């Protein structure tokens, strides 16, 4: 009898230990805008990419340039001018994906250029009806973006200002035909008392 109780107690203690130490992992909402630090986070990225692309798609200049069918666009990698290591390729991908889904543009992908060249070289050497280099369509428009940051510290207050600028350039004329910017400002106050 006594041993059974001992066994129960042991099992109970084990169960408590197991539940107490488990780390919980949950899915979060990628677009949730609850800031947890002054860093440029994933929700900022989502927000910015969405707002900028929406702004461009809503602009009347788009009607003009896509009159003869979706124009060929090249999206340049976002330039990181901040003090944080941001995966700008991921931001660029978000922007491009959103544009592709709008069906207003057709695309060329410069990030996979090396793979393309390799494929063309292979086709030249071994394929029956090879696609030659120099036969690709030339893009008419280029989308460039910049992300910059200004940080200010005043006593216990930390103020970080991010600015995302995007512009669309007509490669034939060299003119800028559209540009917009979005700002995000984050503030953090250091507490007086804490752990």
């Amino acid at each position, binding site marked *: 009898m006594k041993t059974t109780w001992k066994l129960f107690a042991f099992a109970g203690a084990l169960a408590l230990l197991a539940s107490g130490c488990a780390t919980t992992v949950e899915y979060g909402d990628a677009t949730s805008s609850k800031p947890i630090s002054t860093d440029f986070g994933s929700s900022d990225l989502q927000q910015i990419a969405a707002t900028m692309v929406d702004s461009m798609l809503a602009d009347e200049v788009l009607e003009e340039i896509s009159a003869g069918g979706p124009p060929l666009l090249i999206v340049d990698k976002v330039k*990181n001018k901040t*003090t944080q*290591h941001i995966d*700008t390729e991921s931001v660029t991908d978000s922007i491009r994906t959103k544009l592709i889904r709008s069906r207003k543009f057709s695309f060329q992908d410069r990030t996979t250029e090396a793979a393309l060249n390799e494929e063309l070289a292979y086709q030249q050497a071994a394929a029956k009806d090879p696609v030659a280099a120099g036969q690709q369509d030339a893009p008419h428009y280029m989308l460039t973006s910049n992300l910059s940051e200004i940080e200010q*510290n005043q006593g216990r207050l930390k103020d970080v200002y991010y600015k995302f600028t995007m512009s669309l350039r007509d490669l034939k004329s060299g003119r800028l035909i559209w540009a917009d910017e979005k700002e995000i400002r984050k503030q953090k106050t*250091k*507490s*007086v008392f804490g*752990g």
Partner: protein
Amino acid sequence: MVEGRSISVNLQKWRGAATGILLALGAAGCGTFSHYPEGMEATTLGPLRTGQKPDYEKTFGKRTEGSSGVLFAMEMGRVAQLEGDFEGSRAAYEKAIAKNREQDEKAKISASGAAAQGGAVLVNDKVIPYRAQSYERTLVHHYQALNYLAQNDVIGAGVEVRRANREQEAARKRHEKEIDRAKSDKPNEPAAGETNAPAAGTADDPRLAPVYAGLDQVAGAVKHSFQNAATFYVSAVIWEMLGEPNDAYIDCKKALEIYPENPYLQQDVVRLGKRLGMREDLEDFARRFPEAAGTPADGSGELEGKARLVVVYEEGLVPQKTEMSVAYPLFSSDSIGVVALPVYAAAPPPAAPAEVSAGGKRLGRTAPICNVAALAARALGEQMPGILTRQVARAVAKGAAAKAAKDAGGNGAELAMLLYNLISEQADLRSWLTLPAHIQVLSAWTEPGTKAAAISSPAGGTLWSGEVTLKAGKTTLIHVTRMDLAVFSHVMVQP
């Protein structure tokens, strides 16, 4: 009489004394790093000097989590980089950066901070968590930028360069604020019968004259701990790799303010100024640096089609802190106590420029751009008033504890307490010790191609030789570190 006295000390009291001795031993610490410079010498600096690979993972790995975690992470980052383990170095520096940030963002008055400070009052400054000095924090980003560069990530290097800049800018602002505060604190006229006494612990405090004499000898002409032109120069080189000549120009100008006699800085500022059309600045440079005035803008004149070779040459090791006992008044001038203060006693040998050649052609001689030893000495001087305040508070608290022990436990307990005080009274000798004593640079433009390059001492001995790839319009950076017999190097080619 004497016999009687020795017999009267009973067992109870000896037990108190024994506890005191144990406590003291505990405070003195028995671990490898209880005396920081000795621990570093045994585990890391000794092997590095003789070209052996220190086991940095084992030495620093777990220690980066402790109260001196920042310091061990910086040491680990540096050693890993010297050994060519850029990924390990990057992770270690990242940890140091995160810890610095954690300390910055901590509440002004924190429970853990207060506990450490309280512990320090009863033991010594070594129990306070290590806070990296601003020159150390800047250099963390400086070396981290080189890690990114070594991994062909120029954009990542750019981020670190911005962080280094932010660190230097914050240090400069703090310094300006301190000057303003010192000015506003100073009474205009000393009251009648009162002399204008110098603030305790500052360079004007006559009781600390021997401490500051050592610091001044090491620091020489360097006036502030944040005057690091090497980081601004490396920043400028990286800005140019990123195609941002304007940013490069600004950082070159900042470096030039700190180190106007460096010929490569003079040439680069003229070259970039011409490229950017900075007419007024150029007139000023022509007056100040007539020898560099003829440097053409890059891509034009004699620089057309040329490749750039930059050498960052690091020499020696930053000096280690030693302890000095100084008599200092505790409550008033009639109660003198002895406080243990960290000092720099000896300056490292002066920078020795090295000759650089590529493809059999002499390119020039490296020129000093940063005296890291001097930065460390100035940083210690800037901290000295705070260190002294804590040491005096501790001497007072320990004196009071000894008196209380005597009242409660008699002579044996007092003896134990005094012994404890004596042994536990130690200066905090921690600082980043794998840093070089001097940083020198060279920048030259040469014909592109793959060439045999060499760096040799002016006396003739070759310090380093190897093959470098030079591309037209691009930069190749050779990072060479020399410590006594050992030479560490890495060549980075702009992608």
